[in-house]
């Protein structure tokens, strides 16, 4: 490949010989007006818009966090050591996700599959922890309709949990594609797109864990 045609794997320009590019770097590609992958750009725009969604949910909880209608507040029944372990699990799933992408980029299908499965499993462990936490809250008398504070809390963490669940579905679909031999270097951008979503879910939890769980409610 000549100097004029040097491009990113997911990035192409009109000067690129798409066939050679695919052979050299293993990415299926096509020209775009920006020279960047439209799919990847769309995912970043989507993630930017997700900031507004979660920002709204977090702000709502912050505003209602002390409105318990005289009943137990969610903050009163937080189990910080347990949630810390959950947070750590989700954090480590970001590592396994990025290792999956790295393996797929190198053409190591088996390693890629293993890391994808590990990521999905860690996500499932996190979700299981969230279900356990919700159950414990209900046993303590903090249900979805108990108070504005509990409604805001369950809505926020529930929305995040749904995002994790969607991420697990996407990871498992990638895993199945890989098992069927349909995931390789040529379409590794798919793994990268799912990875971006997964890391975003992790970033949102980083925010929630600090702002909702660790910073004391006055």
């Amino acid at each position, binding site marked *: 490949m000549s100097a004029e045609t040097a491009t990113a794997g997911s990035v192409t320009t009109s000067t690129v010989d798409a066939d050679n590019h695919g052979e050299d770097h293993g990415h299926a590609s096509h020209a775009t007006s920006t020279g960047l992958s439209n799919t990847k750009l769309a995912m970043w725009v989507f993630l930017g818009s997700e*900031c507004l969604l979660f920002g709204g949910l977090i702000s709502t909880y912050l505003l209602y966090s002390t409105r318990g209608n005289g009943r137990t507040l969610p903050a009163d029944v937080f189990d910080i050591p347990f949630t810390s372990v959950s947070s750590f699990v989700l954090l480590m799933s970001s590592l396994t996700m990025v290792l999956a992408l790295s393996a797929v980029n190198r053409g190591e299908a088996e390693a890629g599959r293993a890391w994808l499965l590990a990521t999905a499993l860690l996500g499932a462990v996190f979700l299981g922890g969230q279900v356990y936490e919700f159950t414990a809250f209900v046993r303590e008398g903090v249900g979805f309709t108990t108070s504005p504070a509990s409604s805001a809390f369950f809505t926020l963490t529930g929305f995040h949990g749904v995002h994790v669940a969607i991420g697990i579905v996407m990871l498992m679909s990638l895993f199945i594609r890989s098992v069927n031999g349909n995931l390789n270097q040529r379409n590794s951008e798919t793994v990268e797109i799912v990875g971006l979503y997964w890391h975003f879910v992790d970033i949102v939890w980083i*925010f929630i864990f600090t702002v909702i769980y660790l910073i004391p409610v006055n």
Partner: protein
Amino acid sequence: MSDTTTPTAANTGNVDEHAATASHESDAPSEDHAHPSDWAYVKIALALAVITALEVFTYFESVLDWGVALVPSLIFMMIVKFYLVATWFMHLRFDSKLFGRMFTTGLLLAVGVYVATLTVFEFFA
């Protein structure tokens, strides 16, 4: 291919030999292969784990009373974790700046809108 690139990503000291260009200073498309080595990712994950441990440490006031430094410290650690995941795991450090701008626009808009909202409702009072 390698002769057409510059090893700008190598300034991390953790980049694979086959890693190529990362255009940090422009909107120009960057090299997808300019990703760090697996070991670099593990090191970032270890840093994240240590910061998380520090965050949890603040919860146990009987060990150390952080006083007025508690909230600023927690927010600082949260921002560092956020930055590490976004720049390393999401590759914003190595990808086109346009991706980062798209994300940052949404993020800053959200922060602006909701800080204003919280201020209007006297949350910070």
